[in-house]
């Protein structure tokens, strides 16, 4: 009988918050119009609900019309008074993330800049998406391989309050690490990534660091170490879906590097091809799927593409494919930002 667990636990729990776009002020909560939600007009305009607050970026205020005793009153509060932001992930940020994983860094930058601009005045308020957007921007810049732009943005970010947050600080370190990897300083990158891995406390960061480390190991032709490092991502961070195709692709490359006539019996090329197949089947719209198609022998590529179509049409998952993970619920992502 474990009733006693119930009673104390009840005493601990507190009410949960609502996922709508809300700004919290001291003692007050205002629902806010979502500037990223557009109507169907041409050109599209933001959908505005007069009952909800609307942000005036120039004035740095939020205005809301309220009906008090039949009289319409416009209430104004300053953005600096916001104490908390409750906001589901902005659609453009989501799109930017998708752009990055599809290998469209320019589009990602376009989307993410809008989010950065919107959250700029409240970037340090809890629940703001500015930090996440900044991280996506780093990703997009990294994909563009524009070292000058990346360096400039990282320098700017370094000066921000947000840079003191451990996860942001680590992201900045990570981005700098990736720049060094591009310059070919692989030994140092491996060493530093290994150090950072002991400090990183989120699955996302761990996954990223493993990939950076593995990339450098692969570039140094340390195929075995690269393979085990890449595979840690699907093995331990299977829910970090964004990184799985990168890791699988890296693992496939590592297996190819490991292959030799002496290891013919281990059928490493077939194993490598199996990972490429997994990418095409499970992550068909990723940039890595395109890469995988190039790497796969044409007969197997045709099979993978056919299987992917069958799965997309509701067919069963082929035997052994374990990497296709369900996405996290949207609510979970909202909360995860807090």
């Amino acid at each position, binding site marked *: 009988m474990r009733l006693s667990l119930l009673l104390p636990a009840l005493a601990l729990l507190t009410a949960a918050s609502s996922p709508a776009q809300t700004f919290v002020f001291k003692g007050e909560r205002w629902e806010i119009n979502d500037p990223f939600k557009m109507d169907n007009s041409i050109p599209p305009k933001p959908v505005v609900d007069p009952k909800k607050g609307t942000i005036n970026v120039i004035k740095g205020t939020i205005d809301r019309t309220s009906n008090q005793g039949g009289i319409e009153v416009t209430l104004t509060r300053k953005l600096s008074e916001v104490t908390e932001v409750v906001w589901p992930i902005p659609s453009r940020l989501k799109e930017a993330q998708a752009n990055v994983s599809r290998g469209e860094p320019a589009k990602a930058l376009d989307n993410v800049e809008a989010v950065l601009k919107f959250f700029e005045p409240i970037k340090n308020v809890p629940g703001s998406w500015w930090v996440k957007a900044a991280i996506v921007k780093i990703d997009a810049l990294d994909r563009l391989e524009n070292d000058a732009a990346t360096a400039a943005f990282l320098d700017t970010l370094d000066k921000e309050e947000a840079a003191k947050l451990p996860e942001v600080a680590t992201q900045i370190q990570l981005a700098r690490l990736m720049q060094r990897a591009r310059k070919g300083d692989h030994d140092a990158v491996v060493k530093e990534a290994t150090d950072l891995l002991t400090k990183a406390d989120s699955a996302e960061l761990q996954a990223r660091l493993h990939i950076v480390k593995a990339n450098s190991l692969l570039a140094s032709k340390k195929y075995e170490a690269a393979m085990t490092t890449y595979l840690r991502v699907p093995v*331990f961070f299977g829910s970090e879906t964004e990184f799985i195709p990168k890791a699988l692709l890296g693992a496939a490359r590592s297996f190819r590097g490991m292959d030799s006539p002496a290891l013919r019996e281990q059928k490493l090329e077939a194993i490598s091809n199996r990972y490429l197949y997994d990418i095409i089947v499970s992550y068909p719209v990723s940039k890595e799927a395109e890469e995988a198609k190039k790497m796969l022998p044409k007969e197997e590529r045709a099979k993978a593409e056919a299987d992917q179509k069958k799965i997309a049409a509701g067919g069963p998952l082929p035997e052994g494919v374990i990497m296709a993970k369900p996405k996290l*619920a949207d609510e979970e992502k909202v909360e995860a930002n807090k």
Partner: protein
Amino acid sequence: MLTKESRTYKLAKAALLAVLLAVTPVTGILKAQTRPLPGAQKQEEDPLSVLYKAAEKSLEEKKYKEALAQFEELDAKAVDVEPKLKAVVTFRKAVCHFFIKDWPRAQTELTAFLDKFPKGTEDFFDGDNRRGTAELLLIEAFSKQGKWELALARLEKIRTNTLARPEERVNAFTLSAQIIVDRVKSSPDEAKRAAYAQAISLLKQATADGIATPERREAAYKLVEMYTKLGLTKEATQLKNEIDAKSNGSPVEIVRSNFQRLEIGDARFAAAESAADENFRADFYRQALTNYQGTLRRANLTSSFGRAIEAKNAEVETLTKNFPKPNPEQAANIEKAKQEVAQFKKIQDEFNANKDYDAFISYRIGLCLLELKRPWEAHVAFLDIFENSPGFSRISGAYYYHILALRRIGRNNEAQAKCKEFISKFPKDDQVSAIALILGDISQEREEFPEAIGHYKWVLANVKNLTPEVQEEIDFRIAACLFSQVDWAPAQKAFEEFLKKHERSPVRQQVLYMNALCSFFQGKYKETKVDFDKYEQEYPKGQFIPDVRYRQAIVKFGVNPPDIAGTIKLCEDWLKDFGKTNTDDVIAQTPEVYTLIGDANIRLADELDKKVKAADLELRANAKSADKAKYVEALAKVQKEKEAVTNKAIDAYEAAAKSARTNPQALEFVLGELRKLLPGRGEHKRMRDLFKEIFDWNHNDPKAMTYLYEVIRSTERMGDMPEFAAESEKIRKKFSAQLADARKKVDETERRDKVTKEEVDAAKAAVKKLSAELEAELAKVEARRQTSIADQKKRALKILSDAVSESINDRTQEGTEKLIVFLAEKLARKIKRVKPGVKPEPGAYTSADAEKELVKLLRLDEHRDSLVAQARGFFALGQLAVFTREPEKTAANFAKIAANYKAEELNPTILAMVGDSLLAKGDHKKAADYFGYILEHARSSEYADYGFAGLAEIAFAQKKYAEALSLCNEAIDNNILMAKELDLRFTRARALAEMAKYAEAKKEFEEIAKTKEWRGEKTAASLYWLGLMAERQATDEKGYAEAIAYYRRCFMTWKKYEVWAARSYFASAKLFATKLNQKDAAKQLLKEMLEKDRIKDTREAEEAKAYLLGL
């Protein structure tokens, strides 16, 4: 079902949940009340109030017995007080009883409170009259006493009371569900499942309006638990995600959510272990894996704890700062926040104390992956445990499964190293014997028998708690290893000891059989018979009976003198009895039985051969006697007998070969015998048909080419039929008598007196005519013979063409290129070579004809739509040109491939050959594409070294020396060295030289120069490079002299490699002229150089001429 001990993880989990239970605060009712009791004086505190405060303090300090005594005293003393105060004291007494776990008295007190005080404690405790809490406590008291129905009845009242607070009703639903489950704890599974379903129905009602409040979330947690128990994972996961989304981030919730995820994973894992259906099982493992992977790791949890504690500390600090003199409500808030800090810290401490947390997750993930046939990922999961949690309490299990994973990925060396590591680290662990068995098993599997025996003996000597079964298995394995390493006597001894020690062993039958085999292989046929008889007696229908009977036949054949008839009889009986048995063993043994029949007949033939020789001698001795016919007859008779048994032997060997598809050893043996017998007897057709049948079993068999070769050769020989020889012989015989007569006539005519010249000429003309007739007759036969041979050659090519055509469209069939090369070689041999510039005879078979025939034989027209077939066509023509020594044609055909085909459309053989050709022509870009594709896709092919060597050469040519070196090192370090070893070593040496790593480069060049097998152009080149390096490093005359010495060795020894010789000459001359001040010597050397025929047309020669003029 990989593991049993995995369930023990529940202990660790239970420990953490226990922490939750113990450290969470009791209720919110512990605040001190300062309201004065009636009759209290302002100046001096009322004794009742003092007593109340003391009782509250005791309660707060969890001194329940003391508190109870104080509340009882207060109850006795405070007679004339307001009902609500009486209610407070009654409630507190009940609480004390509750915490003392005196359930009956708690029940009495709580019932009294609820009956006597309909308004409860009224407003005494911040608006909550405590009736709800009392109800819950009473229900728990009932439950603790097993009074389930009373508890449920009270809960039903709350659930159905529309006036009750919504959250109280939610709690009532949750508690009802819990009680329903608890009361069937010891019931059968069916009752439990019914209870879970009932609980689900109640909990669904509790969560019907969402899970926004703590009470509803609690109900939702329970619902997840019930779903999990009923195996409704999808529902459990969905609801769990919803709960997580509403989480307030408190460590309590995080830990709880985390362990619930683990629980779902465990439930799925357990379901997988017990699932009968293979498909469901994989699904369950997959679901378990997803949950385990979704579980937060230590770093994440620790960080959450840290943040939560930090936030709570900040809250305490702010509250304390803002309210230096707090009112009761503020004080309560401060106290609550402090308690939460303490609680969080305790959870953190408890969590930190569980060092195995991450390792357990990795362990579970590893097990799932192993079950899901992802051994590489499992390897990584277990590796994580060794790297990050070497002190893991289940480390032995981790070792065991990691070893399994390593074996599955084919890394036996590593698996053995891991076994050894384990044994040395944990010699007393329970798993030692299992792991030592694996260690031995790997050695045994790899046929490293002495090592395997060593491992097994080590286990016997060092592991004290071996079960009798394991001990028996080890004894058997040791004997089996001795047997496998053909140590017959020790093996026999071991088997005999085994039989004595383990009389009723389940492997007794096998041991008896192997024991007999030991006698058999030692040639102790008498003992073998006894042993096999014993086996047949004990196991008349035993699994080894077919082999035993076959060996009995061999024993008969092996005794001296051999019992041939007995042997054949036993073999024929064997075929009669087992001929239709389809077991693998019998099928594999059938060719051996036939072979034995063949061998026995050959022995008979050998015996008859002696008789034939004797009869022949007899005949020769009596050639002129009257009994000659008798001797002739005797000889013919034994010859016929010999022929008959030889035929029987051939028939038996042929039957053996045809039935030996699964017995390659027997096949090789009989094919060897048939190769000796059939061609000599002119039975080429039989030979061809047999090898064709064997070739057709599997065209990808490594020996398929050999079989095909025999098919082709036999087919070609079929053309030269014995009939032609016989006919020629007949003609010769016919003419020889006539010629003899005619010659005799010439002789006689010449000796005759008065013979005229005309007569002699006429006689001679008659001889000449006969000779011409003979020649014409023989020519006719020869012409027919040649036609027949040509026909058969054509047929042979057709067979080859069929074989190539079969796989010409399949890019992955690497053997096709070998067949193509074979075919090209055959056609090239048909060409009659002529000297360059000489026209071939009219009608002669030329290389152009060969090209046409090749295209026809490859049936390229039929495969017009196949890219790879067309590419193979160009490759075939290129190869043909290699055999006909027409390098331009080779290059042209390979260039067509390069121009029309992407790397991915070709296979490694063509990529390698064409890549090399492109490289030689200087088309580095295309060559790099081809070589790069080999490295990307075909590192394990026979042509992988072409990829490395080609790319290294290109990098070197582009002056990317580090890259070239890296490629060479990679190939050499990984032993990817077949045909290109010399090239790779040479490029490595040059790259080292260009990177000024002279010592290493020198070592490499010297190695090349001194290796006999590599003598040739690279030797010359190495000498030149050694000179060049010496020149580059030279600072004085001695240094330059050393360089010149190397150059001299090059041009003196390797003139035929004119490029290197020319370079060496020129470099030496320049050193003489510029560094050693010996212009005359330089001039002389240059003149010598320019006189050489091979050198004078080189580029260096041109430069040398100009240089000479300047000297």
